[in-house]
């Protein structure tokens, strides 16, 4: 395995939470390799440490012990500003609750990461539009989150995650707030981005049905990796007929 292809490399990573007197070992030694172009699902029971792991992978937090290399850089000891830089350049986040800025248009939401990169307005706009086109929302540029359906909001969030051209897309229960129909839409989009653009995706889910769409499935149990193996026959998410997106419809 070529090291340069390794996007995420974790060695005996631990996370210990301290709340007052209480010490909680949320991750107890995670060793993990994810290479460029993989589509990984992380499953496991509630409270097993999936989100904790995602936060570490996404440089939102620092491991208590162990080593973590992101795209070849050791990020385990970085300070807050350096982690912010890493999040801006290397990571794209998608959350369960969409986490778009309210009363702010889809276009501006997608531009935001580029603004923090200090990019000029024109370039920002161009790339944001491109990204929104990619998720099939070219006709909703000026809609605010309140004027979008849940599935559309999650697609805006995906566009925002992709606009920085990240090394890896991290999605923590991206379909958790969606009904089964829009869940399929979002999964189909992720599969297409993975297939056509070679996007590396790490997705947390506790729905087996959703996990089945990935090519590799990791199960976390009690802060440890319970199982890790390929999914030789990923389920192809089906786009629902009547989907509003011609682009998605075209690629289905």
């Amino acid at each position, binding site marked *: 395995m070529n090291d340069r292809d390794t996007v995420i490399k974790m060695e005996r990573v631990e996370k210990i939470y301290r709340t007052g007197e209480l010490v909680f070992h949320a991750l107890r030694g995670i060793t993990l390799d994810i290479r460029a172009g993989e589509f990984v699902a992380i499953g496991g029971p509630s409270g097993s440490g999936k989100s904790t792991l995602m936060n570490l992978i996404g440089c939102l937090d620092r491991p208590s012990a162990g080593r973590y290399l992101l795209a070849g850089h050791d990020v385990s000891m970085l300070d807050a500003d350096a982690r912010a830089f890493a999040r*801006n350049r290397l990571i794209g986040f998608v959350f369960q609750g969409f986490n778009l800025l309210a009363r702010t248009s889809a276009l501006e939401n997608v531009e935001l990461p580029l603004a923090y990169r*200090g990019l000029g307005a024109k370039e920002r706009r161009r790339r944001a539009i491109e990204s929104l086109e990619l998720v099939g929302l070219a006709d909703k540029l000026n809609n605010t989150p309140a004027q979008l359906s849940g599935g559309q909001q999650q697609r805006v969030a995906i566009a925002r995650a992709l606009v920085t051209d990240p090394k890896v897309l991290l999605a923590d229960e991206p379909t958790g707030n969606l009904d089964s129909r829009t869940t399929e839409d979002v999964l189909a989009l992720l599969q297409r981005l993975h297939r056509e653009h070679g996007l590396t995706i790490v997705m947390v889910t506790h729905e087996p049905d959703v996990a089945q769409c990935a090519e590799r499935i990791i199960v976390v149990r009690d802060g440890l990796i319970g199982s890790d193996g390929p999914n030789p026959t990923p389920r192809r998410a089906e786009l629902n007929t009547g989907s509003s997106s011609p682009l998605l419809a075209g690629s289905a």
Partner: protein
Amino acid sequence: MGMWWMAFRLALRSLTRNKLRAGLTVLGILIGVAAVVAMTALGDGASASIQNQMGALGVNLLWVFPGSNTSSGVRGEVGSRPTLSEDDADAIARELFTVQAVAPVITASAQVVLGARNYATRVTGSTPDYLRVRAWALSRGSPFTEADLRLAARTCMIGETVRKALFDQGDPIGQTVRIGRMPCTVVALLAPKGQGSFGQDYDDTIVMPITAVRARLRHTPGREVDQIMVSVREQDLMARAQEQLTALLRQRHRVADGDENDFMVRNLQDLMATLERTRSTLSTLLLAIACIALLVGGIGVMNIMLVSVSERTREIGIRLAIGARSADILAQFLVEAVTLSTIGGVAGLALGVGAGTLLGRAMEWSVRFSPTAAVIAFATSGGIGVVFGFFPARRAAQLDPITALRHE
């Protein structure tokens, strides 16, 4: 630079979303800045008008009025017996080495007529030294002379306001106007002195030989005068001159030891000091209002920013997650606080100018607005934004991204 510009745009957006809240929040700062602006305008106006007054009235001036000093400050009741005369003036000029020039003064009101034009003004009767005492220059012509004085000559010097009322463009010198019933030749035009700080117009006057006024306008026999104006040689000699003058007049009027003076001596410094005291009382009051209002305003800004930070915790989490540094968040909220309070400052500037003008007009005090007022308004309100916005902004910047994202 980009960071600040972005923060500024975010601030404007956030503030326009909460216009009412922003408006109420800046009220304190608005009032505080308005008070500061009004105060400096009045202060500047005061010093300008005091200088103006010094120039207009003549430097190192003493006034002597007849009458007792029982009601202090104001010119007291004129005694039944006239107490000041031209002889007193002569004696002061003759005997006091500290004195530079002396001018006895009587005044009368009169209609001045030229052809079809008609103007009511105040006529001052005095000696040629009057110009020296009042440090009054002529813009045209030459003053009446000692000979005019002796002969009660019908010559006059007119002020600029009188000239405007009677003459158009033509040269008034040598023209004859009628004052009351007396025809009178204009020999000089007094240089304009402008407005006094009590709102009076110095140029609305005519100066004539005291003898002519007495004979033709007042018809009072004898040598009584309404006041004597005395200019002292040097500033340092003022107290000395006042003492000597008092002693001299007491002796001349035969005031017994222990009895009250039958005249009053006033000096410009006293007058100015009274004026200055009133103004500084007002200034202190305004300053106190300003400080309280600014403090309250600043706390209001801090409060609303804390509310804003906690309302927008999730937004902060999102921004952090997609790559904002804590400095970006700090900038965002600090700039919002500064923008908020600066808006208050600008509104306060407008209010201060308005209120200062009205106050000045109501009290007949001159106000002067300088660019300093605008600078002060900006600096104070901006400074308050920085000081009171820093704590909330820092709180926002120190949020942990995960905690912030989980908020609500």
